[in-house]
């Protein structure tokens, strides 16, 4: 089906209409956390001036700072502060299941995931890190927050989706936001490849309270958001224990996989404040960096 350019633009405008709100709320969220000092506080390859030191043998001629050396008889070398070459890659699940909210006063899981992802990206950008979506080039600078906000626009149509393991690059931190309710095979693939590349990161599970507590009773026919999966139960209340056990099992499995790969696993319910989740992710990244 061919779409007229005007239709496309109208659709894009409608889809992008919520972006300022998302950016604003993410900014407000990110402002709660003050990024720590950056820079590795040692000489190394980088942009900023670090120190002048007397040239030693082994220094190349072109590294001598002639302006400084002219003021004395000695040759000086201009050192720059070493900069980390690491970048953060964020991936937010775009599956249909993410578009679920158990109650009208709660945001959907996708909304919360995008909010957290963007807020974290803004924090990192303010700290001078390079941030991008997984599989896309990471860039620094405030304008990157806007690009990310656009790239995170909702388009959930797939029944389930997986983070692309081939998008992993060395020296990356990867933050994966999803509900991990569908088949988690891709997690194992992703973590295996990440471990191979030495990439670390976070798995962050975002669930609706209804999914976490299973408050249903009586005869119920459960359907997935897309309608592809169905489960018919005469006594939903009787299924609660089994469901919760399976959920715990899924979480334990994820945590185990994370531990094996050196990743961290966090979880969040959409009725909780997003700031707590953001704080946890921020500190988790810090912990990881300190490791």
């Amino acid at each position, binding site marked *: 089906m061919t779409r007229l350019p005007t239709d496309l633009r109208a659709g894009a405008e409608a889809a992008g209409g919520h972006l300022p709100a998302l950016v604003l709320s993410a900014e407000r969220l990110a402002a709660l956390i003050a990024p720590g000092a950056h820079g590795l506080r040692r000489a190394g390859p980088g942009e900023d001036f670090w120190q002048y030191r007397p040239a030693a043998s082994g220094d190349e001629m072109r590294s001598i700072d002639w302006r400084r050396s002219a003021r004395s008889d000695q040759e000086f070398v201009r050192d720059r502060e070493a900069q980390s070459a690491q970048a953060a890659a964020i991936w937010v699940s775009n599956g249909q299941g993410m578009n679920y909210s158990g109650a009208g006063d709660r945001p959907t899981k996708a909304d919360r995931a995008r909010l957290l992802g963007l807020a974290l990206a803004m924090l990192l950008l303010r700290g001078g890190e390079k941030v991008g979506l997984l599989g896309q080039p990471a860039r620094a600078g405030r304008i990157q927050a806007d690009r990310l906000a656009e790239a995170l626009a909702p388009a959930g149509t797939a029944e389930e989706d997986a983070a692309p393991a081939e998008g992993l690059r060395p020296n990356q931190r990867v933050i994966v936001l999803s509900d991990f309710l569908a088949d988690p095979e891709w997690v194992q693939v992703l973590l295996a490849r990440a471990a191979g590349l030495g990439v670390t990161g976070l798995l962050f599970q975002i669930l609706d309270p209804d999914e976490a507590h299973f408050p*249903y009773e009586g005869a*119920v026919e459960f359907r997935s958001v897309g309608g592809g999966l169905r489960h018919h139960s005469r006594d939903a209340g009787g299924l609660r224990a*089994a*469901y919760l056990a*399976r959920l715990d099992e899924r979480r334990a499995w994820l945590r185990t996989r994370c531990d094996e790969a050196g990743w961290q696993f966090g979880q969040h319910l959409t009725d909780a404040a997003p700031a707590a989740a953001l704080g946890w992710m921020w500190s988790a990244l810090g912990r990881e960096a300190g490791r």
Partner: protein
Amino acid sequence: MLLLGPFGFAAPWVLAALVALPVLWVILRAMPPAPRRIVFPGVALLAGLADRTPVARRTPWWLLLLRLAAVAAMILAFAGPVWRPVLQDPADGPLLVVMDGGWAAAPDWAVRQSRAERALVDAAAAGRPAALILADGRDGETGALAFQAPGSLVAGLRAAQPVAWASTLPDDPEAALAGAPSGRLSTLWLTDGTEHANRKAWLAALTARGPVTVVPPSRPLRTLALAPGDAPSLTLAATDDAVPAVLAIGPDPQGIERELARLVPGEATDQEGAWVRPVAIDLPPELRNRITRFRIENEAHAGAVVLADDRVRRRKVALVGNPVGQAEGQVLLAQTHYLRQALAPSADLVEGSLGDVLDSAPDVIILADQVQLAEIGELAEWVDAGGLLIRFAGPRMAGFERLMDEPLLPVMPRQGGRDIGGALSWGDPRGLAPFAGDGPFAGLTVPEDVTVRAQLMAQPAPDLQARTIAALSDGTPLITRDRLGEGQVVLVHVTANAEWSNLPLSGLFVQMMERLVATARLSPADEAGDDRQQPFWTPETVLDGFGNVGTAEGLAPVAAEDLARGVGPGRPAGIYAAGERRQALNAGGPILRAQWPGATVEAAQATTGRDLKGLLLAAAALLLALDALGSAWLARGGRAAAAVLFLALALMPRPQAALAQDLDAELMRAATEVALAYVVTGQPEVDRASEQGLWGLSLALRQRTSVEPGRPIAIDLDQDDLSLLTFLYWPVTEGQAPPSPQAYLRLNAFLRSGGMILFDTRDGDIAGIGGPDMSEALRRLAAPLDIPPLAPVPEDHVLTRSFYLLGDFPGRWQGNPVWVEAPPVGAEAEAGVPFRQLNDGVTPVVIGGNSWAEAWAVDENGYPTFPIGRGWEGEQQREIAFRFGINLIMYVLTGNYKSDQVHVPALLDRLRTEEMLAP
């Protein structure tokens, strides 16, 4: 039929299905309701989980009850339930249906007809012979009743109508019943509840032959009659104590028959089972004289109507003054002048000598200062028969020597009279004492300035005070009255002119005379002299049984002695005329309730059983709908049920929105901008030409006149309101569908309220028919319109000079006549005036075939759309066409204003005269 208490069932075996209800209960109970459907992303985690303890879900008891009730209602409905069923008559002998056919049966005639028809149909089903007597007194001579198959009687029954007299049965019941077949004769008597001729004899004869069932009237009966007595008043008799209003109906000043007044009946008295209320006709004489009939509100029978005749109408007053005419110019001194002025609005006046006026049978005779009358004997007879004689005193009476012997005076006067406040007398002129509260003048206010300078005194007598109905402030009588036989004699102790007092100059005099005349008894209807001259009375208008007024057709004149017996067969209620006298024969009267010894009186309500099937089926449908709602609520939660409920409410027909909102913005523009309008024909090129033509004309009007119309408005006759339009251009096309009848109603209202339609056949009258009919299509379209007689535009029609002076009215074609309303026949040109003063009427239609819209049409750039003629002459024709359009719109907007210019010469003349007179 199975009977259970008040219920009957036509098909009782269907009720056996009720046994199945408990089984249904069990089945329904085991069927679980539909599961709720929940969207849940975690369904992947549930895959493969089995219900640990599959709970058997049960339908809630209330849902179960709903369903069972629905099924039970359906079973009951199909069993044919009837509330209070009418049991079939078990009799098998012949059936006689007696149907009272007088006016008293008219209020519920249809009910009676259907009841009798049901009885006949039932008899036909049972194979019983039947006969029908319509007790309207018209078939008294038929002899023995013919019993026949009931089906053949139904047509006659349906055609029967009540008559405008009381129900009447044939005289001899035995002879009528001689032809009855053997067997017990069962009788169904549909009575009107009143006693009437031969009823008792018939009842006795019928009860002797078999059972008699009497069906009483289903509605209370109310009748209206003229009450006997001096002042005309009415009597309302009713079998219940409701107080209906009595309407006085007559022509209004425009001559349109309408309700003139509503009379309220007074307090009721109980007379032999009927409530009787007096209804006073307390109306101004001007109003009362216009009344043609009285009618009880919401009663449709002849007994509820009283036709007004001379008895209710204005009195005939004879004035007898000085036989010799007054000197010319002294009319204000005439004795009768003030009387004439006072009485003319409310009474018919007869003047002449006493002998002349006595022949005209007046209700009141007024003698102004007359003594020693030649016809005193006849006058005394007339008063004795009920006449009202009013005499005024005066110099002649005061100076009459044998005044003590003068007959026909209420009190014995004292000769000479009395002067008060004159030049040679003591004291001041006397005023009037307030009127007694129980006299004929009660309630009238005495003006301060009414004084009496001279009066005729009365001899003191014991009964003088009782006979005085108005007195002066010193207690001496001003007006005295005495009864004489059936009539009365009144003496006014002053003159009827302003000689002795200024009473005749005051408004009080008019009121007093009206009051006095109103007390006059109505002239007796059966005067012997009249009867001798007029032995037959011809019906003029008669009432039918329902009280509707109709013309008397096929009715023979009625002998006077028959008329005196009141309404009856051959002389329905109505107005009867003999010579100049008119007399009303009214059906209503006192109600005599009939008694029914030996007969079974059916309860009034038990006319028919009420079929409950539809009700029960509706209840079942409602229950099933509730069940659907309840199930939805269970399955989806309250929100879904609310949505269903909302949907149901939204689908329900809503009441019409307020009418004020109906006006389309486009039509409102017609009112604000004086936009011209055209009729949409459905042919695009014609409609476009109309639109462009009217726009071209609008532009011309804007340029040349102070009329600045907006864009033309397209009118769909079937839908649009025309009330805001002034001018409608109607191009006539072949095959144009005529508008709906409602549209024609609107069009006629539009024409009547001053709108104008320009019909344009657009063909230049190629067919050469020439008449106003023009084309078949126009004739077809315009036939239902109220169009006056038409004529070609006369040379001096306002249309020729309302803005431009025009001789021809070309459009795209020229030389064809244009038709407008014809001038009145009598219009003649006055000398010195260039045109006739034609009618006031502005023609509602202009009909022509010159295709004006095409001549006017301009495109959006202002250039003409259609070519006309050739070269300069064509453009000249277009210019004249525009001038015609402007004249036409001016004519529409200003009417015959230009026609009034006929008065300009006269106005100028007057101005010149005033100028010359001015200093």
